[in-house]
């Protein structure tokens, strides 16, 4: 199962990289979204995908899945959400101020140095 997930994650990383290398700011943010999805899935996969009950003690199961990667992922999801939200509003503000979303046009001018 992990092999399938690893291939899927690899694909997500490749897609994210491709999007981040493009000119449009929105596509770059979409790329970062894909990248964090890839990273979260990678965390889960590397923790092991073996059979077992959800990490709730009420289940009274023989084996539970590993709770630690889940806690890590939850933290990571919240943080990446905070950063993505900030980034999106930043993009929205730069649209407003600069009137463009083309990264090639967003360059410092000589006199700003």
């Amino acid at each position, binding site marked *: *199962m*992990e092999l399938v*997930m*690893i291939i899927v*994650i*690899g*694909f*997500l*990383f490749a*897609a994210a*990289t*491709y*999007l981040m*290398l*493009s*000119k*449009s700011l*929105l*596509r770059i*943010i*979409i790329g970062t*979204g*894909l990248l964090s*999805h*890839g990273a979260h*899935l990678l965390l*889960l*996969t*590397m923790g092991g995908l*073996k059979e077992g009950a*959800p*990490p*709730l*003690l*009420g289940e009274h199961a023989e084996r539970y*899945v*590993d*709770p*630690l990667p*889940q806690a890590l992922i*939850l*933290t990571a*999801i919240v943080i990446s*959400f905070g*950063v993505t*939200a*900030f980034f999106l*509003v*930043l*993009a929205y*503000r730069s*649209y*407003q101020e600069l*009137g*463009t*979303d*083309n*990264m*090639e046009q*967003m360059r410092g001018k000589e006199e700003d140095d």
Partner: protein
Amino acid sequence: MSTLHWAMVAPFMLALFVPFLYKHVRSIHTGWFILPLPVALFFYFIRYMDIVQQYETVTETVPWIPSLNIHFTAYVDGLSLLFSLLITGIGSLVVLYSIYYLEKEKEKLHHFYVYLLLFMGAMLGVVLSDHLITLYLFWELTSISSFLLIAYWYKRERSRYGAKKSMLITMFGGLLMLGGFLALSVMGDTYSIRELLAHSSTFVNEPLFSVALLLILLGAFTKSAQFPFYIWLPDAMEAPTPVSAYLHSATMVKAGIYLVARLTPIFALSPLWIWLVGGTGIVTLFWASFLASRQTDLKGILAYSTVSQLGLIMSLLGIGALAFHYNFAENIFIVATLAAVFHLFNHATFKGSLFMVVGIVDHETGTRDIRRLGGLMTVMPMTFTIALIGSLSMAGLPPFNGFLSKEMFFTAMLRVLEADIFSLETWGILFPVLAWCGSVFTFLYSFLLISKTFLGEYRPERLEKEAHEAPVGMLLAPMLLALLVIVIGFVPNILSDTVLAPAVYAVLNGLFKPGEGVDVHIAHWHGWTPEVFMTLGVIAVGTVVYKTFPKWNGVYRRLPERLSLNHLYNRLLEWMEKGSFALNERYMTGSVRTYLIYIFTAIIALLSVSIVLKGQWNIEISRFAPVGIYEIVLAVVIVAGALTTLVSKSRLTSIIALGSVGYTVALFFVLFRAPDLALTQLVIETISVALFLLCFYHLPKLRDHGKGYSFKLTNAIISIAVGVVVSTIAFLSHAYKPFESISQYYVENTYEKAAGKNMVNVILVDFRGFDTLFEICVLAIAALGIYGMIKLRMTKEEKLEK
């Protein structure tokens, strides 16, 4: 601190008071307050002559950084005493001369004397230091003070150019020298020069030996203006003449000579040392004396002459190192070292006086150009006399001291022919031949200097001022030096017995016992030897060359300007500046995409190389869980979603596809039994997509709306490589796990110790609550930041103010 240390720091301390003296005692020339110090130091060092003559040394130590074994250790032996006497003696005369040379009203005297005192203290530090690191400290201080003194008239472009050039070249050498010092201290396991000299014979086979030798020699050659690093010295002539006389003829340029002489016992066993020091010296001697004759500026002639004479001393030190290869009884090479220290002293006397004379001529006529000067003999008889003495001594004519040292120089060069090691038996012939040719040119420019300035007809219309004899105060210092030239010429043994013999003993450290051997050579300074005929030949050929000079003068114009070292230096600087600018322009494109490409490529390269080199390929398939059908379906969905973001023509489609990826991830979380993750992911994906749509809605209408994106091959290759590398590393690390997870502890203790049943939540708030605290902070900061971005706007006026 001992008196010796106080003597070393006295110039620095006086330098502190110079600005006060200049500001508050305006009626007296500041130089008068400086003058007592070098005079007092000179007489202080004279007292050491008794000790040094007994072949005893004085060592005083003041700790500086004891934990790193760095101390200010002062060490007085024959060599450092000779240099100290030169520095303080000529320093006194230069200060005296500068009092009359620099005008009280026009010049910024406090700058001048502060720099000069800094230099004097630094130079004393160089020659008296026994510790390599403090030696380097003072060495750099001489470079810095020399830089300040060359650019004393900083409003002139040429001064700034000269100062920069000398700074770059001497700092380059100084830095390499530091490397050499470090290599040396690693070899000897000490920083102390005395201790290094004590077990110097063990170094030859060390792997760092040649490195240390080359680096230290580069430092010495750049400082002492040897070929090809001499180019800074002629440009340093933009400094005031007292500075040129002091720094660039008598003292600073001899720091490299000092270093070579001081470290001779360590490196002399290496043929590389003998060939490099001797060979560079003799080439410098010839080349600079050849170039000196083409100069039209008096100080230019003297600058090249200084380079040439420094080459002479350097070559003598190289030949002197041969003494270490022969037994004492048959040792014929000691004379070279004696000649070196003797000429070192002589050169300081006659070159100092010549610079001062040139300064006087410049001061009284307004020009230093020999094409405009002439016939000053009757106008300035005193100056002429001094110049004549200096020039004849420089040309190596009797009865002046230059003759004696030139004679000994020829002796030493002829004895190279008797050497039978290091291919000297075949190539050694170059030494006397180049030495003789160089001497002919020395004779030529010495006579040109005299004849073009003082002989011929007097043409006042070409001069900027009405020429007249200089005030006696200005003449005093060069007169004293010229007197010394004559006295040493007639009674050289006064000097040689007192100062030179201990200096030779110090240079040839450990070669012979105190007192034996050296005296013999000094007494033998006359007799019908081949050297005398060589000198006669120099005079004869030199006269012919001088008489026919206007005829063959054109040779200099045939020298290709493009091959000159100055041209190369300028091109090199220009090329480096342009090159680094072009390089920066090239890779710092200002586009984020370029930098991302650099970063991704570096990641791919580093990771794939380490995978190939270090990859653990022992895969345990048993670790992998069985494949389920639902997961396969979801995998297809998520890949399709990601693919849609890539290829979609409109942004709206991309956003929705991203949302579908997010929801699929949530479904994966459901399938992999992570209920809290699934909840959070669903909510957060919904908010994110809403935010994306907000951005989309506010996109500028003008362009890009609904337009597709062109496919880029580079981007595709990089992306695929990133994906493959990440997958490979994930696969390898999952397939190979050395130990089990620590999670069993959480499973067992979530209820027992933390009173909860949801393990993930207990980990988040109990076992690992700190993470959660700061994750809350992250959210708070993001929220505040977003609020700030939306609310705070700079008005037009504020923007303009900024």
